[in-house]
């Protein structure tokens, strides 16, 4: 296959207008900020650089590595772009990639493009860059490990956010979509993490100037670190919670009022039926989902611990 679509690109029709517009709003603000910031930091060189880098991400998504039995791992690239180009440039690059995928290949819809850019461009930049930035000044191994974890978490968070958007749109119940999406992307994320790290190793060897710590520090300040850590924490707490107690999440959401209960008919964000009473039918699914999510959480914590220990020894 020349170009194989990635499952995370939500097509038109799967999100309600309200959800689509909310995420368009956030995305537009972020992209506008990104345009402003890259203009300032990269200067006149930015345009060819980001254009060719966008083409690079696109082309790199065609690289795959055989895993087993005909399946192969794929590459999304958001975290890598943010780490090497800086978060703002990363956001612009991914915005260009996602819009061309939607426009040229109908991979992902137009009306929902805001949501797709948010998930795969903005979240991945925040997490990928934020966590990597956190490890700056540390040993090389730790930095690379952080890049890997960031890439994995970025993939997972993007999948989580896509699930939430689908649920908010009443397309699918939370207890089904979260385990399914996170389960699939846990594997895709591992491939993503490994390729990201291997690519960084190559770049560090051949063009160390592109990966120097001052350059990274210049590209984004501590705000990104805080943002990255917060989003990561939110995702790590939210995903098991959401799959174990979907009604709980919903109640929180209602209390916060952002679901706009008063809206009706066409703008109905949350059709009633997505409030499931923990019926017997759903119970087994929920259990499975919770188990999967907890497993992931545990793995993440273990991995983080062992890495921190390694870092301390160094």
């Amino acid at each position, binding site marked *: 296959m020349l170009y194989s679509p990635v499952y995370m690109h939500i097509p038109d029709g799967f999100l309600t207008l309200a959800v689509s517009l909310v995420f368009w709003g956030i995305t537009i603000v972020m992209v506008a900020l990104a345009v402003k910031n890259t203009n300032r930091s990269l200067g006149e060189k930015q345009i060819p650089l980001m254009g060719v880098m966008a083409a690079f991400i696109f082309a790199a998504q065609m690289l795959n590595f055989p895993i087993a039995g005909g399946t192969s791992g794929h590459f999304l690239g958001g975290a890598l772009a943010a780490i090497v180009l800086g978060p703002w440039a990363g956001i612009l690059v991914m915005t260009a990639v996602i819009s061309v995928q939607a426009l040229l290949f109908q991979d992902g819809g137009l009306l929902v493009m805001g949501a797709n850019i948010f998930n795969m461009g903005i979240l991945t930049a925040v997490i990928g860059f934020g966590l990597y930035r956190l490890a700056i000044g540390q040993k090389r191994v730790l930095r690379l490990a952080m890049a890997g974890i960031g890439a994995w978490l970025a993939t997972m968070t993007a999948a989580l956010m896509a699930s939430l958007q689908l649920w908010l749109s009443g397309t699918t119940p939370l207890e089904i979509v979260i385990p399914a999406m996170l389960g699939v992307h846990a594997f895709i994320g591992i491939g993503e993490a490994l390729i990201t790290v291997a690519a960084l*190793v*190559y770049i560090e*060897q*051949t063009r160390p100037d592109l990966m120097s710590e001052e350059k990274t520090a210049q590209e984004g300040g501590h705000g990104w670190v805080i943002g990255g850590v917060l989003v990561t924490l939110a995702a790590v707490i939210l995903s098991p919670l959401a799959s174990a107690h979907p009604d709980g999440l919903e109640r929180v959401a209602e209390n916060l009022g952002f679901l706009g209960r008063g809206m009706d008919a066409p703008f109905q964000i949350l059709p009633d039926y997505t409030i499931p009473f923990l019926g017997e039918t759903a119970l087994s699914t929920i259990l499975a989902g919770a188990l999967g999510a907890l497993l992931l959480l545990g793995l993440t914590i273990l991995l983080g611990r062992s890495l921190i220990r390694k870092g301390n020894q160094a």
Partner: protein
Amino acid sequence: MPVKHKADFELQLPECEGDILQIKDLHFAYPDGFRALQGISLSVCEGERIALVGPNGAGKSTLMLHLNGILGENSPISIAGLTLEKENLPLIRAVVGLVFQNPDDQLFSPTVFEDVAFGPLHMGLPEEEVKRRVQEALAAVGMEEFGSRLSHHLSMGQKKRISIATVLAMRPQILVLDEPSAGLDPRARRSLIDFLRGLSITMLVSTHDLQMVAELFPRMVILDEGVIVADGATADLLQDEELLLAHGLEKPCLSAAD
């Protein structure tokens, strides 16, 4: 430095009827419907050196990609007695060493050593053997000291040599080179020609460099629009100016060199 093909992990090839490569009426169309090869037949004997020439788009690269099964599954091609079938592919790729035109595509590992080791490692050879083969292949192209260098920083001519080494390390029976002299300066080109001359192995080389053909390849095959329009002794074909002109070629200078 000729590469010797006697070692512990030598391939046991089935008996071959005198021809190491046989193609019988090969047709091929790209997915977009373009018929790039329209009935190619070719026999190559062990040890022969053949030049494949023809204008841009003639189908030279397409034909070469068939020779180790990258294009056209189940083509009417037999290599060292093996038919081009899915289960034979790994073996065929060990027999046919294919070097692409652009060394930047061929060299994808950070260091030269890793790149040359790719083939042997993929074949599942033990580490010691891999190391020995890499050393040997690098020696064959005269780049022993370059193992730890980054491929990225080499000159074009050096990259070309390393590309050939990546394939030599697999100990192929047939070496297939796609435009090896393109983009080289005269000095690098000259040293490539001398190197190829010293290599005693069956060789099929596509090129636009007719002067090199005249120097190095006794047999010459002219391809145009997916068919073989001439196949014979280089010395004869290069005299036929009409034929050359008709297929976008030009009679090279035969006096200046050598």
